[in-house]
């Protein structure tokens, strides 16, 4: 990547938090990418929507609760968060259950958004 080039990076989160390390690792990569002043967007689909569930308390499982980090993303100029509408519906969740402001989108619209990216990384 030549200096000054801004690419469109999309990170697709498809896994629930804590059961695997994917959600936390994705978050680390997202923050690194933002530090390079790239155009970053995040998608939460399938079980990935659980990453944004309000009220996570991880004391009992002795894991780091990384969910507050999603609220800090706008401090890194990451403001494009997209959530799959169908994934919320099939998990009994609504937009009110999420701990950050997001754009809820149909699968079809997410597909169009993906098509316009330079780099798509799925976790």
């Amino acid at each position, binding site marked *: 990547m030549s200096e000054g080039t801004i690419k469109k990076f999309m990170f697709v989160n498809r896994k629930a938090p804590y059961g695997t390390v994917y959600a936390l690792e994705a978050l680390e990569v997202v923050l690194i990418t933002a530090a390079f002043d790239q155009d970053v967007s995040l998608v939460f689909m399938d079980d990935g929507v659980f990453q944004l569930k309000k009220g996570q308390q991880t004391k009992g499982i002795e894991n780091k609760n990384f969910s507050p980090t999603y609220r800090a993303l706008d401090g890194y100029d990451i403001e494009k968060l997209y959530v799959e509408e169908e994934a919320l519906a099939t998990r*009994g969740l609504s937009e009110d259950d999420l701990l950050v402001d997001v754009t809820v989108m149909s699968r079809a619209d997410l597909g169009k958004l993906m098509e316009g990216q330079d780099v798509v990384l799925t976790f």
Partner: protein
Amino acid sequence: MLHIVNKSPAERNALDSCLRVALEGGAILLIEDAVYAATRGNEGESKLRVALGRFKVYALAPDLEARGMQDRVMEGITTVDYGGFVDLVAEHKNCQSWL
């Protein structure tokens, strides 16, 4: 037998396999990402509700709390802590982890 399931029902078929094979009267303990199966409004809710007539179903409370799902456990499912997990293992003749 105590059946222990730890995979999300939306990602793996471990719970489905367990429900197909497990003998009536057994117990099922949902842990880690499998606790999502115990929550109201999830796609497999009706399937698990039927299974509640054949099995005693438990879900691990610390895993529900970590995921912010402690307030939406389906009626008929008993939540247990780690001590309760140990008790369940001790109470049953054998156990199987559906990895």
